[in-house]
Structure formats: structure tokens, C-alpha cells
């Protein structure tokens, strides 16, 4: 069944979106001892990656829905939109603040791979995930 999605206008470009990642799998150790997030951290089966709206939920709540080995990374809603996605509200069993990024137009696997890489580099430019 066709479903129409809408960009959530109440989520501003400067609002932070939270995503659980597994550092042991998706943070690569560098020779200088730092760890960098890799693009695979944003990938999902559906090619529509899940996040939570930071102003509406705590990190603890989001982590409680995942695994002990996970941690949170943050991106701005505007970063996701700039790559050609809308932020779609989709309350889930974890929290009502759940959203997913939906491409405005069809994107190939390769394009999504590039977008996920770009998001990972945005995270890397702002913080160094622990691993």
C-alpha cells in the first residue's frame, strides 16, 4: 500500500537527532589511537535510517532500547535534509521521538552509501567516538 511521508516541520534544521551505534563494529581504530565512525554505522536494511529527536528524549532512554555495548552519535536534522532526505516521524516501541530519514527521490545503494559516509564524517568532525 502506498504511504505518503511528510517532512516533520516541527523538527528544525538545528535540532539534533540521536542514533545508536556499536563502536566495536562501526568505529575504526586509527594509528594515533583515536577511533573514527565509519559510514556503515548509518546503514539499515530498509535504506531509511532510524534516529530519535534529542530535544524530546534522553540518551539513557535511547540506549535502554539497544545493547549495553552501544553508544549515541548525534547529527543535525539540517545535515540529513541537506543530503536529500526528509525527517519522518514514526513513533516506535522505544519512544515517540523516533524518526527515520526518507529520501526525497529514489536513491541507489551507492548514493545511500555516500550519504551515510557523509553523515559519519560529520560526526567525526564534531567528536571522537569511544571504542
Amino acid at each position: 500500500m502506498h504511504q505518503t511521508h511528510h517532512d516533520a516541520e516541527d523538527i528544525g534544521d538545528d535540532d539534533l537527532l540521536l542514533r545508536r551505534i556499536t563502536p566495536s563494529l562501526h568505529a575504526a581504530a586509527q594509528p594515533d589511537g583515536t577511533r573514527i565512525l565509519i559510514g556503515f554505522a548509518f546503514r539499515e536494511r530498509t535504506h531509511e535510517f532510524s534516529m530519535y529527536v534529542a530535544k524530546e528524549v534522553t540518551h539513557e532512554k535511547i540506549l535502554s532500547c539497544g545493547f549495553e555495548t552501544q553508544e549515541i552519535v548525534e547529527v543535525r536534522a539540517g545535515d540529513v535534509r541537506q543530503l536529500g532526505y526528509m525527517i519522518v516521524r514514526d513513533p516506535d516501541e522505544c519512544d515517540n521521538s523516533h524518526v527515520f530519514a526518507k529520501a526525497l527521490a529514489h536513491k541507489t545503494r551507492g548514493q545511500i552509501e555516500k550519504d551515510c559516509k557523509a553523515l559519519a564524517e560529520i560526526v567525526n568532525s564534531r567528536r571522537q567516538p569511544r571504542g
Partner: protein
Amino acid sequence: MAQALHLPDFLGLKRSRQDRASNRRQWSEVKSLQSPAWLREIYDRISDLKKLEHNWDSYGALPVADGAISSIRVLLSNLDIDDMPTPHVAPLPDGGVGLHWRVGSRDLEIEVEPNGAAHYLQTIVGGESISGDPTEAQNALDWVLGK
């Protein structure tokens, strides 16, 4: 009276010097199973990905597919990786497997899908990304090292 023992040429010991030189030209260079040092460790890490269960990422990821594991092993065995630093091995949520290298500002991700299809993404950190197929993977690896 002693007689010379006549042995059949099972091992091709009687091949001429010229034949041996010809063979050297026909066969590719022999690679040591120990080279590079990280390869065996990486094979083990790739195998360990099979232990991941459904929903390993807490977003509904699939277990890593056997086809992806065998294909990425074949891919690695066909590349000249002697000078490469150790890659990071990562599972993909659709059952694929990924490898990641970063040397300076050069970044390379190779991924193999569950059906064995492979492709790569090379990125200058802070710049553009270029994707390609496995026939160009060796060029991408050389690019990471600045060759």
C-alpha cells in the same frame, strides 16, 4: 656389477632448464600464506561475524550471509594487499560485509552484499566520494596508499 637405478620421471626432474624458465613466466608470483601479517587475523574476524544474530544493531539487521563472507575472502585473496595497513571489518545490516581503510585523508570502504556483489567507495576526507566496482578495487587500494 652395479647398475644405475632407473626412476620414472614422476616429479618432472628431467625437465629442461628452458622448460623451467618457461614455467616461471607462466605462473604468477607465489604469495606466502603469512603475508601480510594481518590477513589471517582478518579472516578470523570475518568468520566471527557469523556469530552475530538477527537485530545485532538494534535496528533489525540481518545475520551476515555466508555468501558475503566467502565472497569477501575471495576478493581479499585476489588483491595485492601486501603493503596495506590492517582494515576494519564491519557487518552490514542487510547481511553483507564491509572493509574500511583510512590512510591520512584517504578513505576506502569495500563492501560485499549478501549475494556476493562487491563495490567500493573512495573518499577524500572532507571532500567528494567516488564509487566503483570490484574490477577497479586494486586501483582503489593503491590510491589509499598514495601509489
